Each structure stands twice: as C-alpha cells, then as structure tokens.
C-alpha cells in the first residue's frame, strides 16, 4: 500500500506544468488534490515516472462568468463548491452533487478538474457535469482548446488528453431560473463509489434536456429516449427506464439493469417535482 518510486516537480504556472509533463518520455501525471491519483498510486494501479504538482496554481483556482457559462478552475475543491464559495448558476445542483462526494476530508482536497481528468465511471462530476452540458478547457503543448465533456470521456479512466495536456477549467452552462434538475445516486454506504447515478437537467428555456446514466462500466451514457419523456413531462417508471436502456443497447447484468433503471426513474421524478 505504498506507491512505487516516482520523481516529483512543482509547477510554477500552467505553461511550466505543460513543459514539465512533456520533459521526459515516461508516464507523467499532473497532481491536483491527489484524492484519486493517490489511492491509485498507493495500490500501484498507477505508477507514474514523474508527478507534476499543479494544486496551488492561481490559474486553476480562478472562477469567472463568461456569457452563458460559469468557468470553474480545475483546482476548485468539492468542498468549495459544497460550501457555496463559487456562484450557484445551476439552481443548487452543483452544491448538491459536491456534498455527496466521498467524505468531507476528501472533499477538502479533491478537485473538480482532477475528478474529470481521472474519469472514474463511479465518480459524480463526469455524470453530473455531462447532464449540465459542460465543456472541458484544456491546455497543452499545442495550445488551448475546449472539448465538450460528451466527447472528452472516451471510456472508463480514458479521456481525450494528450500526455502533456492538463485540464484547466470546466465551462458549465448556466441554467435559466426555471430550469429543473434531478440527481439520484445509489451507494451501499454514503461516500462509497456509486453503484448507479442518474442525472437529469431540464432547461426548456435554453433548449437543453439531458438524462445521463453514470457508474456504468464505461463513460457516462446519454439516454435520449428518457430526455424526450422529460421534455414531454411524462412520468418514467422503473420498467420504462429499463426499456429505454434496452432499446439503445445498454444492457447490464440483472442487478445492473434494475439499479440503473431505479436511479434514472428517481432522478427524473426528482427533476419533474423540483
């Protein structure tokens, strides 16, 4: 339960971090809060050659509003979101989600950017932010770019980052005041990795309705048939959710089919009742 040996460097700014990450051919990783990378390294599932610390970089702690977006620096912690230290432009959804991530001692250090870059299927932000239609701001040797979250996470623990890229911010569309959301997570114990996550955002004014299933064995899954039901205001029972998943080829084992359908139908009920 101790990590393999690695080299360590502290980046002075984002450009320095990119330079350091590209300075050797090995497996180099940026370190934010380390609340996901730390366990992976302790379990030796990840054995980076070089770890580049980016946790304290000012640019990654910035929170700004740009047009219809709230731009949240990748280094903002879950606890900062839980405590309302950044503007609430998602009608309370971000705070609700943040407060359920792992445990307070983890939320105090773990970051939203780290969670997105790590892309654990059972983590909260990949599913919640996908439902909100968020985009990922990335900086790297070839310059800065923005990728929609739906194109960013490719599979479990697999994202569209090149070796020397870092996630700098999440661009999260603001919800209109009348927008509804629902979020339902099933864990065997509070704070544990989820068995299933249903996330719903319904913002007719902005033309955005998303129903997303998380904690699958891959990237979060859009369920367009259920989004259509939410737009129509139709109640979605467990069997309806099961049928919708089956119709798009999302088939799990018996337990998975049941629990995912329950999470989705409860998230939708929550959204429609909000």
């Amino acid at each position, binding site marked *: 339960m101790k990590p393999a040996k690695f080299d360590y460097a502290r980046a002075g700014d984002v450009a320095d971090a990119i330079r350091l990450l590209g300075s050797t051919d090995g497996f180099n990783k940026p370190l934010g809060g380390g609340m996901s990378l730390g366990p992976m*390294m302790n379990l030796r599932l990840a054995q980076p050659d070089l770890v580049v610390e980016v946790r304290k970089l000012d640019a990654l702690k910035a929170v700004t509003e740009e047009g219809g977006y709230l731009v949240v620096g990748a280094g903002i912690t879950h606890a900062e979101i839980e405590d309302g230290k950044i503007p609430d432009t998602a009608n309370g959804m971000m705070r609700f989600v943040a407060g359920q991530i792992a445990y307070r001692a983890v939320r*105090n250090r773990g970051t939203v950017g780290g969670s997105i870059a790590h892309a654990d299927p059972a983590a909260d932000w990949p599913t919640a932010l996908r439902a909100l239609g968020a985009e990922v701001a990335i900086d790297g040797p070839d310059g800065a770019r923005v990728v929609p979250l739906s194109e960013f996470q490719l599979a479990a623990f697999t994202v569209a980052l090149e070796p020397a890229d870092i996630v700098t911010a999440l661009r999260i569309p603001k919800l209109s005041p009348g927008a509804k959301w629902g979020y339902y997570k099933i864990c065997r114990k509070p704070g544990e990795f989820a068995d299933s996550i249903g996330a719903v955002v319904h913002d007719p004014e902005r033309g955005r309705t998303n129903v997303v299933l998380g904690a699958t064995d891959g990237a979060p899954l859009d369920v367009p048939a259920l989004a259509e039901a939410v737009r129509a205001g139709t109640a979605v029972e467990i069997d309806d959710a099961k049928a919708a998943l089956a119709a798009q080829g999302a088939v799990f084992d018996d337990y998975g089919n049941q629990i995912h359908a329950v999470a989705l139908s409860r998230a939708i009920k929550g959204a429609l009742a909000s």
Partner: protein
Amino acid sequence: MTEISLTINGEPVTASVEPRTSLADFVRDSQRLTGTHLGCEHGVCGACTLEIDGEPMRSCITYAVSCDGASITTIEGFDDDDVMEDLRQAFTENHGLQCGYCTPGMLVTARDIVRRLPDADEKRVRLELSGNLCRCTGYVGIVRAILAVLEKRRG
C-alpha cells in the same frame, strides 16, 4: 529527495523527503508523531485524518512533498484546543472508543462536525462519520459523545 518546509503543531519543520512518502508516514516515522494512525492507506477508513491548513484531510493519500508551506495539526497538536477537550471528555464518558485505533481520526472529524455543523442532529452526525470506520464500538458511543458536545456548546 525533495526539501520541504512546513509547520507541524505550531513548530517549524524543514526536512528532506522522498516524493513517495505519505504525509502520514512522514509525521509518524520522521517526526515521531505516532498518534496519526494508518488503516487502509487508500483514503477510505479515516484513521489517518489530520488537519492541513485548518481542514481535515487524509494523510495517507497526501504526499509529504505536497505539504511544503502547509500548516499541519496532528492529534498531538490539539492538547489545548477547547473543542477537543470537550470531545475527549465526552468520548470517555460515552464509551466512544475501545481499542482506540480509529480515535485520532474520529476526533479530528468530530471536531470538524462540531465547528462546521453546530446544528447537526444524529442523522447528520452519522452521515458525516461515514468516512471514519470503527470496528469496536458500533458507533453508538461515538455518536452520543459528539451529540453531547454539540448540545453543550449550543448551551
């Protein structure tokens, strides 16, 4: 090896550490502060919880090199803290510990609950304790102790 300067329980410390040394191993092995306990070493059990810059955090998945410039408070650093004094008394009176292995982490988490959530009820206390595992007490005494301190401080 990487040089770090930090404050531990109010005292300045400068040391040279291997990057892979966790903060928990650093305070235990190099600083002889063995009150911080290691259980799971992947952030789940809560035994290693201590304060970094005034907030409870996991020292088993935080590397010592990441704590350059930080202020660390281990369980040994709370001798004169009035909330911790109340908690120590309440843990004793309510059988909040048996073997004591989880207790340092429990107390750091309990202190955070008392300070951050002064109106917490039993349900909230239990929820907040979900990141600290105890295999002796069944949590009843721990929850009772924290509720007693909350009650006392609400006056």
